[in-house]
Every structure is written in C-alpha cells, then in structure tokens.
C-alpha cells in the first residue's frame, strides 16, 4: 500500500522468544497499545520506522502528481478544492514523520534516506497525471485504496502510529469523494470528457491494484508484521475488498474496468479479476517507472532550494532568544 514492501525483522516462535519478547507479544495479543518509551524488540522498532517512514514519504511525494494540476484546474472552486486536498496530504506526511520520530529517528534523517534512494514511497506516484480526469481517478482510486489500508491500521499496536491513522482517516473521505465527484462530472459530460474519464481509469486501474503490494504468496514479510499488528490484513484481502467496492462505482459512472476477465463470483461473494503485471511493479519500485526521476528530483530540489530559508529561520530564532536573554538580565 503506501508502504508496499516493508522488510520485516525476524520472525520467532514462542519457544525462541526471550521472556521480554514473550511479555511484549502478550501485550499486543491482549490489544494493548505500545507507547514510545516502553520496551520493544529492536525488530519491531526498525520495521515500524521503515513502514511509517515509507508511508510518510508517500504522502509527501503523493502531492506531486496532483500539484501538477493546481494551476490548471478548470474552475476556481476546483482549484481551491484540489489545493485543500494536496495540503491535507502534506499534513498526513507530517503526522506520520512525528510518529516515526517517537521511535528515535529524526525527520531530517528520514528525508535524507528518501533523497538518497534508500527509502521508498508508493509506486503509484511514479505514474504521470496526464489530464484533468486523472485528478478524479487519483482521488477515487488512489485515495480509495489508501483508505482500504488505513482504516484497519487505526487499530495498529503502536500508539503514535494508530493516532496518526485516526487523524488521517478523518480527512481521507473528502479526498475520495472530491475525486469521484470529478469522475461523475466527466463521465456525464461530453463524449470527449467521458473518453478522458475512461482513459484515466484505463491507465490508473492496475497501478492502483499494485498499491496493495505483491500477492500473498510472494509477500515474505507479512507474518511477523501481522503478529505485531503493524499490518492488519494481507495484501490480497485488501485488494479483493478494493475491487469489490470499486467495480459498482465504475458501473455507476458508465465506465468499463479495463479487465476482460473481471467477473462476479457468486461462490466467493466477490469479483474474480486479473492480477497486475508484477514485473512492471518491481520495475517501478527499482526506479524505472515513468516518473521516478522527476518525483525524486522534485523532492531533492525543494529540499536543497529551501535549505537557506530553513537555516535563516534558525539563525533568526537564535538571535531573538539571545536578545530576550539580554533584556531579562
């Protein structure tokens, strides 16, 4: 999802656990929250830093494909809405960086790992947003997929992560609905507008399915993360839920999901659908998607161009503090 492939540290059976690790696992099994200064296995801490960091980076990098359309929104109202949506994503990134910081890593360290290519963000943001209809499809599908994953994470075992998720979930519904509203407008518009909406769905459908991460049979790190309750559902469970929820919404729009094998399966009470092309997924993760260089380049540039300003504010704050100290003498 926003954290698609998170390497998890070690997986131990109860017999292999130390008494401390056993007590820790029991707390999680009882549904207790783990708070920052409490004892936790090193692997739990490291896996969480990776996962929350990746999630935070996705929120921040995720501003870029939509930011691309702010100046070209079709009306002032749409522009204001899109600005508010993108600003929310900045907020989501900040909530999550603070949650990660409670685990003993600094925000600047996480930024530098991202900029050095040592931490990832969701593969979805390496696809381009070519038309205004993509703003609709992103809100509807990408935020829709994010919600699928974030709602259960509100119950995750790590207190600060859980609280960040609760805040984020309160804001996500607006994101998905504004996207779907754009899709409705386009799909019910002129034939050319409807074609744009269909084209956006065609391009973003499989990348959205990839957001849930590799298929369970190839997802090697799931078991430990699920035992620790930092992953609440398997990738395939969430992907299935997403497809089941989204297909009727596409039908309402009169749009066709670009999957000839999509079929309702009465027996399982869900749709059968085609898997995305996983080789494309791994290729995008490895840095070879259509926009990887642009996205990371934009982040690094913003960080470097803003350095003088961040530094100037620190110097200003230090001088003001010194002046206050003198005045108080």
């Amino acid at each position, binding site marked *: 999802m926003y954290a698609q492939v998170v390497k998890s540290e070690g997986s131990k059976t109860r017999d292999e656990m130390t008494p401390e690790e056993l007590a820790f696992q029991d707390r999680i099994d009882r549904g207790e929250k783990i*708070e920052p*200064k*409490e*004892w936790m296995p090193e692997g739990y801490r490291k896996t969480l830093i990776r996962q929350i960091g990746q999630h935070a980076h996705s929120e921040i990098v995720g501003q870029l494909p939509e930011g691309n359309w702010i100046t070209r929104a079709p009306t002032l109202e749409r522009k204001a809405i899109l600005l*508010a949506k993108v*600003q*929310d994503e900045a*907020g989501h990134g*900040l*909530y999550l960086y*603070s949650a990660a*910081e409670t685990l003993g890593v*600094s*925000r*600047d360290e996480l930024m*530098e790992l991202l900029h050095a290519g040592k931490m990832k963000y969701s593969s979805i943001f390496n696809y381009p947003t070519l038309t205004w209809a993509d703003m609709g499809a992103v809100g509807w599908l990408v935020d829709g997929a994010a919600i699928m994953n974030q709602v259960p994470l509100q119950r995750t075992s790590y207190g600060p992560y859980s*609280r*960040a998720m609760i*805040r984020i979930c309160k*804001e996500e519904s607006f994101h998905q609905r504004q996207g779907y509203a754009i899709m409705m407008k386009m799909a019910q518009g002129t034939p050319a507008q409807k074609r744009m909406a269909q084209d956006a769905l065609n391009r973003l459908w499989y990348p959205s399915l990839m957001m849930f991460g590799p298929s369970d049979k190839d997802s090697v790190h799931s078991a430990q993360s699920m035992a620790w309750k930092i992953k609440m559902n398997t990738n395939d469970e969430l992907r299935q839920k997403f497809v089941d929820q989204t297909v009727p919404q596409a039908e309402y729009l009169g749009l066709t999901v670009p999957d000839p094998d999509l079929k309702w399966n009465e027996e399982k009470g869900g749709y059968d659908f085609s898997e995305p092309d996983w080789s494309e997924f791994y290729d995008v993760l490895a840095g070879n998607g259509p926009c990887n260089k642009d996205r990371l380049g934009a982040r690094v540039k913003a960080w470097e161009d803003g*350095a003088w300003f*961040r*530094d100037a*504010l*620190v110097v*200003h*704050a230090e001088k*003001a*503090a010194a002046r206050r100290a003198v005045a108080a003498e």
Partner: protein
Amino acid sequence: MSKEWPLWEVFIRGQHGLNHRHVGSLHAPDAEMAILNARDVYTRRNEGVSIWVVPSAQITASSPSEKGPLFEPSNSKVYRHPTFFDIPDEVGHM
C-alpha cells in the same frame, strides 16, 4: 546537514470549552512559527479555538516501567467510586 528545527508538542482547545488536548507534534524554528505551523497542520477544519505549543524537550514524562508502583495507590481505593455504595431503590436517584 544544517541544524534541524526543534520539536514542539501541540495542544489544542476545541470549540466546547474543554481542556487543551495534546494533538501531536511538529518542527518549527521558534514558538511563534510553531503556533503558525500548528494552525496549518492541526486545525485545518476548525478543530480549535486556542493553541499551546511546548518544546518537546521540556516535557517530563512518567516512566513506563514505574507504571505499577506509580498508579498502584489508586487501585486499592475502590470506595472512591460512587458505585461502591449500595443505595436502595426506594431512596430514588442519588
């Protein structure tokens, strides 16, 4: 790497006259900027009418390992709760 902005804890009082409540943290170069950032990060939907910011380094927290002894004294005093006392129904609401 230049110097990182210090971390601040943010407390917000909502519309209904309740206490300020901890909502999260953020980085800012000084207190004034921390308030402005807190406005943007934590009150985008009218969540508050007042903001407090405190440097995170100034917070002293109770230690999780002393949770037992620290809170034990109140565990044994169940009579502090009204439900400890049985009042007959005939007495009416109390």
